[in-house]
């Protein structure tokens, strides 16, 4: 189908984008449009105006800092996959990006767009939460920063206020020996995952995090995950609380994916080559 009518604006700065969104409550920001595009064509989304933020310089810059890297929100999945941007982790981001949808989608889709779309089964929300990333927001009240787990409130639901946009995401630097496990179960390559789990074990910084995605609502985030990594059955109560126990097959799938993600950490420790996600 064809999209319904909408107006189009391409502001040159973040301030102008915020002003454009504030002036029209039916307006929606767009960058790669790889999730919004299908919804427009199916007329499930009918914004009055699209505010194109894909080329705003602030959303395209990458800033390397001592403690991590701040990525502009409009950096594409393909740029992560190709290593075209610096990576504060030992190759985890490229590995995650390689598993997102299809190359034709990765060439256009952006990291910020994936985070604001907030699908629990998408790759970036789960993996970047595991890496302890923070989002930078700009809105009428100025800018603010939120930990990703505080930004993602549930399925398709975020802490974005009216007129606010995500301008960037900050990924903390891992120590050289950090290990990352990421496993997802999809019926077909590029599909949304039916179960997913990302694990970060960074002994050098004393950071151990585990995030379960593909939930019906909010991600399950374990920030002090050392005990859970040693004994994944400690997660069973939380899986039950998330409603996974309603279907035995779903519960089994999630439990298996969690164990495989954790097992990757052990393999990762032996083998410096990271595994495909």
């Amino acid at each position, binding site marked *: *189908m*064809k*999209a*319904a*009518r*909408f*107006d*189009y604006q*391409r502001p040159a700065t973040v301030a102008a984008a915020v002003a454009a969104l504030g002036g029209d409550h039916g307006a929606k920001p*767009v960058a790669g*449009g*790889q*999730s919004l*595009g*299908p919804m*427009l*064509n*199916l*007329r*499930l989304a009918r914004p009055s105006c*699209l505010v*194109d933020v*894909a080329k705003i310089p602030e959303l395209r810059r990458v800033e390397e800092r001592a403690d991590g890297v701040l990525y502009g929100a409009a950096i594409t*999945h*393909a*740029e992560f996959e*190709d290593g*075209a941007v610096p990576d504060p982790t030992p190759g985890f981001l490229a590995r995650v*990006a390689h598993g*997102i*949808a*299809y*190359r*034709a*989608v*990765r*060439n*256009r*889709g952006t*990291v910020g767009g*994936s985070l604001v*779309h907030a*699908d629990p*089964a*998408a*790759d*970036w929300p789960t993996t970047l939460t595991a890496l302890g990333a923070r989002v930078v927001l700009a809105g009428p009240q100025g800018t603010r920063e939120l930990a990703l787990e505080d930004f993602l409130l549930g*399925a*398709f639901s975020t802490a974005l206020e009216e007129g606010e946009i995500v301008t960037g995401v900050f990924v903390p630097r891992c120590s050289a020996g950090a290990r990352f496990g990421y496993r997802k179960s*999809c019926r*077909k*390559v*590029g*599909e*949304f995952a*039916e179960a997913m789990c990302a694990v970060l074990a960074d002994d050098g910084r004393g950071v151990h995090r585990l995030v379960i995605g593909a939930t*019906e*609502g909010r991600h399950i985030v374990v920030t002090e995950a050392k005990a859970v990594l040693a004994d994944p059955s400690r997660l069973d109560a939380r899986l039950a609380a998330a409603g996974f126990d309603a279907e035995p097959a779903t519960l089994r799938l999630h439990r298996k994916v969690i164990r495989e993600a954790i097992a990757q950490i052990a393999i990762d420790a032996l083998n410096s080559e990271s595994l495909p996600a």
Partner: protein
Amino acid sequence: MIPIKLEVNGRVLEASVEPRTHLADFLREEMLLTATHLGCEHGVCGACTVLIDGAPARSCIAFPVMLDGARITTVEGLADDAVAGELREAFMDEHGLQCGFCTPGMLVMARDIVLRHPHADEDTIRHELAGNLCRCTGYVGIIRAIRKVAAEREGAVVTRGTALAPPAYASPLALPVSPARVAVEVAPVPLPAAAVAVEAVADDEPLRNPVEIRESFEVPAPRDAVWALFQSPEQVIACLPGARLTAPSDGRSLAAEMVVKLGPMQAAFGGTGLIIPNPADWSGTIDGRGVDARSATQVRARLAYRLVESADGAVTRVSVDVAYVLQGPLAQMSRGAIAREVAARLTQNFAANLAARIRGEAPAASAASLDAGALAWSLVKGWLARLFGRG
């Protein structure tokens, strides 16, 4: 209409575009570059894949208005490209196409695969090609063709941001239609009300592959009282959550509207129905068809009821069989268990309201439309999961 500048197959052009026009339509309709095929038109099938600034992208969900200054290359633009030439040969040698509909997208994607992954093995090719669907299921030949070309290549190439040489020959037919479309400012047209024909006609066409739901319940009333209710369209409609008559009924045909909410989406089906009683065996059918004016989703449904008297005549067992077929955008979302669950809840509410009405109580849910509420998320998610995979 917004002015943009684009380079298409090496030719720079200025055009005035409607923001909602997608790139595939622009290429096909304005440029007459019809090699780019539209399959699903929502970013799933990959048939419309073109190169934007050297990298493959779905042209059905890319909008020219957002591509100001970009370089677009379609299959026509790859006529003189050496790698595409090798792929064309290999596709022919390996029987890499049957009907040819997916082939333009396959060729654009295949070129990108062999450039980025020289010596790609079958697993890599299958992974990279997963976003391009071939309904002739000719993947084996396609993969063999790509593998053959990849085997000859040395050194990976990053395709993102690269420029391609334009083809030597450009068909005069593919010149931009000039002047490209006169700009006409059209005031937004209010959505038309659902078309309701009061005159319902008998519909003998059987429902194809309907979703079927069976409910049965008992009401503490004699059979003739229940029968009387089923002959009154006003009362039957009042038992359906979210439904109302839009015109007085003559007792046989009816015009009604029904609102169903599915989380962020709402459908208001307007349509007609026909009541056919069969007093001989205390049964009857109500056939209906309607359309949601907003999404153009069509629904056809048949409700068959049968009344069975209990031994002492004080209680009547009512069996209701509902069969329905949805066609259109909503149907794409509501295949599977979720739609079934919504429809089952509708049927259950109908049964409960009917029982309440016969007992002389006010039906609890008749005024409000059924809000699928908690079901909405799983529905949207299930649909999105099928629709497209995203990061």
